[in-house]
């Protein structure tokens, strides 16, 4: 039963491909990738729509409002309304804009986001493009986002856009390092760049109940935190949304975009968020594995999306809670804390591995991580020490 539920989508795809078995191989391959892409788009666009409205509702709750509740039951059709509005809006292109660049930017950014989604294993045997260098692929296509952002900033020749693009690229560059370096320990420990293998390496349970997710090792935990924060920055969300800080530069690189192109940017941002969270899940949260053996019967993809929704909720929660940080704070955090810390994770992972991945390794790596953490925090501690208040002129 559970087997059937687990593999239902895989079997569906097989049955779709079965009739064209006699066609040349590359055609079949193209067809299967097309199916994957359609599936991806369908799933994630729906998810995007849902999340967009959920975000607004959750933010509203956090800010003690009602949020959208007019269109459909609980305002669930709000995204549909938004989509229609976006589609029928006029698409304004500035007169002095660099037209082709201005036009291509949103397409490129969306394409990158979707491609990045392609290598993530969503369930047992459910990896759209299961390639050997999957992680590298993820970052390769992810890195094109920066170019797209720049194109957006340059193309709509407008100082706000340019400034926003510069800020975005600056922080993306700075956080790409910690992001990648925190991935390295996992790659090192698993010995492969292939997401499926990484997920497989986190299978099984300790003493029959403790999941062997990397997040439960000290280095994995620290790396996951850094990874999560860096992902937050990469997707330009609060508290790292200086690139589109409404109060300073209108909407950053999206200032000059309207209508459907703006919607594309918006979508790309969410897809990027999903992609980063998905990678985080794959790397640290055990992918589609169930947290407890007795919950195995629930299909794997369900677990994946459950984890995804938790992470997304945390994203929204953070957005609703934290104020915007200054650009210099962001940079300092990246270079002075996140990067050294991620290197510490690398070392700790090595220690963990060579100490036999047992308890001794666990504690040793904990020692490494904790030591570096305390050292860095002592080093970077800039809090002013407040003196007790004295009343000099009273009586």
């Amino acid at each position: 039963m559970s087997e059937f539920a687990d593999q239902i989508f895989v079997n569906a795809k097989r049955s779709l491909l079965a009739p064209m078995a006699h066609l040349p191989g590359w055609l079949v391959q193209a067809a299967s990738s097309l199916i994957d892409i359609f599936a991806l788009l369908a799933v994630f666009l729906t998810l995007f729509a849902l999340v967009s409205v959920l975000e607004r509702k959750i933010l509203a709750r956090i800010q003690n409002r009602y949020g959208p509740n007019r269109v459909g039951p609980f305002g669930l059709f709000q995204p549909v309304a938004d989509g229609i509005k976006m589609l029928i809006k006029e698409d304004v292109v500035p007169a002095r804009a660099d037209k082709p660049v201005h036009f291509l930017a949103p397409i490129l950014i969306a394409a990158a986001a979707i491609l990045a989604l392609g290598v993530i294993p969503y369930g047992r045997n459910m990896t759209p493009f299961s390639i050997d260098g999957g992680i590298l692929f993820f970052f390769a296509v992810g890195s094109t986002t920066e170019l797209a952002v720049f194109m957006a900033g340059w193309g709509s020749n407008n100082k706000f856009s340019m400034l926003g693009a510069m800020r975005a690229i600056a922080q993306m560059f700075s956080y790409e390092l910690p992001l990648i370096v925190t991935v390295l320990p996992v790659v090192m420990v698993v010995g492969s760049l292939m997401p499926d293998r990484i997920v497989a390496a986190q299978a099984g349970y300790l003493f029959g109940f403790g999941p062997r997710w990397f997040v439960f090792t000290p280095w994995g935990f620290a790396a996951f935190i850094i990874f999560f924060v860096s992902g937050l920055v990469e997707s330009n969300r609060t508290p790292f949304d200086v690139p589109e800080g409404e109060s300073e530069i209108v909407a950053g690189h999206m200032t000059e975009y309207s209508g459907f192109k703006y919607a594309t940017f918006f979508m790309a941002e969410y897809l990027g968020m999903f992609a980063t969270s998905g990678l985080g899940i794959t790397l640290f949260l055990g992918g589609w594995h169930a947290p407890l053996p007795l919950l195995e019967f629930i299909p794997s993809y369900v677990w994946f999306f459950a984890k995804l929704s938790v992470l997304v909720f945390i994203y929204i929660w953070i957005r609703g809670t934290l104020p915007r940080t200054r650009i210099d704070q962001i940079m300092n955090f990246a270079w002075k804390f996140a990067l050294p810390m991620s290197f510490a994770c690398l070392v700790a992972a090595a220690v963990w591995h060579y100490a036999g991945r047992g308890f001794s390794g666990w504690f040793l790596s904990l020692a490494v991580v904790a030591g570096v953490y305390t050292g860095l925090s002592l080093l970077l501690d800039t809090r002013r020490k407040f003196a007790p208040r004295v009343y000099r002129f009273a009586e």
Partner: protein
Amino acid sequence: MNSAAFVLISILMLGAALAAATLRKLMHAALCFALTFAGLAMFFLLLGAEFVGLALVFIYIGAVAVLIVFTILLTRRDAVKERRFSWVGAVIAVAAFGTLAWSILRTESVSVVAHRVPPLTVGRIGEALMTGYVWPLQCTGVLLTAALIGALVLVMEEKQ
């Protein structure tokens, strides 16, 4: 590997390269440059060098192209007066291509068809890098560090 993909990719890549070489607007040229490398990466995938292809995309589109556009941005005020297209370059380039193509075509030893090869996994590359090629690897690391520092020093604002 099939020839359709080969033809498509080569057309894409060479067209992009030609555009990068000849376009009047610097920014467009730079973007076509990035596109060229995307095509090259596809070539590498076609040739079964997956890792190198991805690394190429990662490095060139993610880093070098962005660097280039940044440089364009920083040196924007200087609009180089491109006079009419200089033919010397074209002549030399065509001559170079002619001789190269001619000499490639007249060597039979290179007209071989690819035989099946074991897939090149990242593991194998890593193994080679960590065993036989660890010294070049270290040297490359040193070189990159030097380049990083050198670039920083070069572009640092000199204090008046």
